[in-house]
């Protein structure tokens, strides 16, 4: 009997996946439809679905769990639908409009290429803080931290009083260059807190410097507002989920996935970083798996119902984007860097009435699948409809048969909308759609890797997501990846990643330290001490967060990182410091060497430009504590021939101009060592792996399929 250890939850826009891992590293993936209004319902349903596959129940297994990690849309939904608190905002007098101007770019964030240049589609969302709750105080600090206009004390009280009169529920203070000179912001904060105390109100004050002391005022202000606007209400949502779990017998403290790829407590001070939804769990899982398998460079690809997401792990590290956008807001959060394109298995397929060519997406049927789902109400053909027409997916075994798909409906829709207008057979039209999708994904994957200065041959490709394995062969064909791996648990890989994530807090601070190539010893020491002071400040914040979960600083494993660049550059590199503490000039040399080593790796040795001198632009501290993690299965190898019980029979499919009898296997019943030849379809409840002509699949001892292109 299984004894569950870890519960990982990925409450996406479409499905809530749960991933439950037992003490031997065996796992089970549960799926249920997401219930965005009360996420814990979908979560419990999904857990039931998972545990039913082990013939056990929530009551039996939940008390055994050692850890649980949640990632989902709770926070993001709150932001997108603008149901947050009434936040008041204090800015520099004269710049009160800057927040609602959205830096112009917020009128077209998250848009497809076509919409970005289609100017009338550009649109500003309502500001998080309306103008009437924004006030200004007179002060000005320049970029070096010099006070140009001293804080005009007489401005503070009337400004705060106005917000109190407007009955705001939180106050955010964001002054220019406060990350460099925090005293003005803190003075305003202290006055505000005094006044709130006197007025006997329950209003929390957020100075950006206490939360996100980083450059770029739009990003920093937004992020701190998100903290005030959505974090507290989200905390309640998360507490509800935690309660629902505890009521069902769990004893662990629920953690949440954060944008930097680590997990944090639901009690964390800074919750804005949990407004990440979606695929970074997969990246974290891929990183964990890559470490276990000893792979340094991995290209991760995830096809879901709505999008195709790719990210690179290079030399074992995830790339971090420090000023990303989410929910159409520019933010100052460290986000695991990923690229996404709006083409998934639910993408709508249409014929452009002007040019008569096929177009995919960018909109998608998401959880409603397509016309083949009679209950969906969808009328436009999706990629999934084409899969059904071709016979690639089993209409009776979609999500284990939870949704019955109609092949007749799919056939009729492809015929009238695609095949007849193009004068093609229905099968050829459907096949053409999958080929178009695969070639788009292939180009996208290749251009991203080439664009970063690498070649696919340096990478192993991981393919996961519910729709990934259907197209893996198609989108990796001819790219020359070192290897192509498909974990057998592809459908729940994001959730697996949450389970594999470190319990990690990460804090960033902007610095402006410039050192010339041949600097004096005193200048180097001054620079190093400033960096160390920033590290100390951030370490304190990390320790404080862990203390809330009763971890003492001795339990915490700290990593010190810094961002460095050549002077005058606009982009920097994030590097882990090889030192524990800055002490003398030698330590500085170590930092410079680590930077140049990374620079050589990312760009080229000939790109090094030490004559420009160096800038340290940021300090970062990450702290982790040990938590239970999933084990990667190791099973004895069996023969090359798949066992008879895995074989489910034949199905007629259409492939490249002809009907073929494909061999159908049940994925779970295949044994390590099995070789599966084309044309085969490996079915599981939530995913389907296609081994087309010209390919061969091999299941290794870790329950990972290697998809090999036969030369």
């Amino acid at each position, binding site marked *: 009997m299984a004894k569950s250890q870890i519960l990982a939850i990925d409450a996406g826009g479409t499905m809530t996946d749960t991933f439950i891992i037992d003490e031997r590293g065996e796992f089970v993936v549960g799926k249920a439809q997401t219930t965005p209004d009360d996420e814990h319902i979908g979560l419990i349903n999904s857990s039931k679905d998972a545990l039913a596959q082990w013939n056990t129940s929530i009551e039996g297994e939940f008390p055994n769990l050692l850890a649980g990690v949640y990632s989902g849309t709770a926070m993001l939904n709150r932001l997108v639908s603008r149901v947050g608190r009434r936040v008041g905002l204090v800015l520099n007098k004269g710049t009160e409009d800057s927040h609602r101007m959205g830096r112009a770019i917020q009128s077209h964030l998250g848009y*497809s290429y*076509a*919409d970005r240049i*289609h100017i*009338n*589609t550009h*649109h500003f969302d309502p500001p998080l803080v309306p103008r009437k709750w924004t006030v200004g105080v007179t002060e000005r600090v320049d970029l070096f931290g010099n006070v140009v206009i001293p804080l005009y004390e007489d401005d503070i009280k009337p400004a705060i009083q106005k917000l109190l009169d407007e009955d705001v529920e939180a106050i955010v203070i964001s002054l220019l260059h406060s990350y460099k000179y925090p005293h003005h912001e803190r003075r305003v904060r202290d006055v505000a807190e005094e006044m709130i105390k006197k007025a006997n109100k329950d209003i929390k004050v957020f100075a950006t410097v206490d939360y996100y002391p980083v450059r770029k005022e739009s990003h920093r202000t937004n992020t701190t507002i998100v903290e005030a606007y959505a974090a507290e209400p989200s905390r309640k949502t998360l507490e509800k989920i935690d309660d629902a779990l505890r009521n069902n017998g769990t004893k662990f403290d629920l953690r949440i996935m954060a944008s930097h790829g680590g997990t944090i407590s639901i009690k964390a001070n800074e919750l804005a970083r949990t407004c990440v939804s979606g695929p970074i769990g997969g990246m974290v899982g891929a990183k964990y798996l890559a470490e276990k398998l000893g792979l340094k460079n991995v290209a991760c690809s995830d096809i879901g119902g709505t999008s195709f997401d790719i990210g690179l792990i290079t030399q074992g590290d995830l790339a971090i984007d420090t000023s990303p956008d989410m929910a159409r807001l520019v933010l100052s959060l460290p986000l695991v860097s990923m690229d996404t394109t709006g083409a998934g298995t639910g993408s709508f397929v*249409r014929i*452009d*009435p*002007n040019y008569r060519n096929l177009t995919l997406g*960018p*909109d998608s049927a998401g959880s409603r699948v397509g016309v083949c789902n009679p209950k969906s109400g969808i009328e436009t053909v999706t990629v999934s409809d084409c899969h059904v027409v071709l016979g690639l997916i089993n209409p009776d075994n979609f999500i284990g048969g939870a949704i019955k798909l109609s092949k007749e409906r799919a056939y009729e829709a492809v015929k009238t909308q695609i095949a007849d207008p193009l004068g093609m057979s229905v099968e050829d039209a459907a096949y053409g759609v999958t080929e178009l999708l695969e070639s788009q994904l292939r180009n996208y994957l290749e251009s991203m890797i080439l664009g970063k200065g690498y070649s696919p041959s340096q990478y192993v490709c991981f393919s996961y997501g519910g729709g990934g394995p259907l197209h893996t062969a198609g989108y990796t064909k001819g790219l020359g990846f070192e290897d192509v791996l498909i974990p057998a648990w592809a459908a729940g890989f994001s959730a697996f990643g949450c389970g594999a994530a470190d319990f990690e807090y990460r804090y960033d601070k902007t610095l402006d330290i410039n050192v010339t190539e041949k600097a004096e010893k005193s200048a180097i020491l001054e620079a190093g001490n400033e960096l160390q002071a920033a590290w100390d400040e951030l370490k304190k914040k990390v320790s404080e967060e862990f203390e809330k979960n009763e971890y003492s600083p001795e339990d915490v494993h700290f990593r010190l990182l810094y961002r460095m660049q050549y002077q005058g550059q606009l982009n920097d590199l994030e590097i882990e410091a090889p030192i524990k503490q800055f002490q003398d000039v030698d330590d500085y040399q170590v930092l410079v060497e680590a930077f140049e080593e990374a620079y050589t790796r990312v760009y080229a040795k000939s790109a090094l430009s030490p004559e420009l001198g160096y800038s340290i632009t940021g300090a970062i501290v990450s702290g982790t504590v040990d938590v239970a993690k999933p084990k990667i299965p190791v099973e004895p190898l069996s023969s090359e021939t798949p066992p008879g019980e895995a074989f489910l029979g034949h199905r007629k499919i259409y492939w490249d101009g002809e009907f073929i009898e494909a061999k159908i296997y049940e994925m779970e019943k295949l044994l390590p060592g099995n070789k599966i030849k084309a044309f085969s379809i490996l079915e599981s409840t939530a995913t389907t792996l296609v081994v087309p002509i010209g390919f061969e699949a091999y299941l290794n001892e870790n329950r990972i399929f290697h998809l090999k292109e036969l030369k």
Partner: protein
Amino acid sequence: MAKYDQKLIGELIDGTLEFYQLKEMMSGHKDPERFEIYREVLQERVPWDDPILLPYGLHLYIVQKKNGDRIVKCDCGHEFCHYKENWKLHARIFVRDTEEKMNEIYPKLMSPDTEWQVIREFYCPSCASQLEVEAVPPWYPILLDFEPDIDTFYHDWVKLPLPKGK
């Protein structure tokens, strides 16, 4: 292909659609029936029976008269001229050609210099709706904005019969 009904197109004309509805219309492929529905909605809203051939502006239409003439007509019923002629030559015109007149509609210093640019406002002689505004150099000829090929549009593009009167 998108399909919209009279209610939705009516709201499009009124400017009362939610942004997400507009965005869908803009980002998706155009509905081939748009013109027909649009024309019907406009026809229901005007107080006269002459069939609208083509909307010409926010208040102007090219309509079909019983005698076969195609006339530019204001929604108040005022008839300007044959559609091949420039209706502006039959409208009332107000020209802002002094600083004082400019500063009625712009703050000082934000208005054009009338030596360089004048503003010409065209009004319906019956209902005084502002129908068009030109911003041109002072000596500039009155512009003929639009010379539609109505027959080709109906026959070859939207493939509809020309609307007939009741």
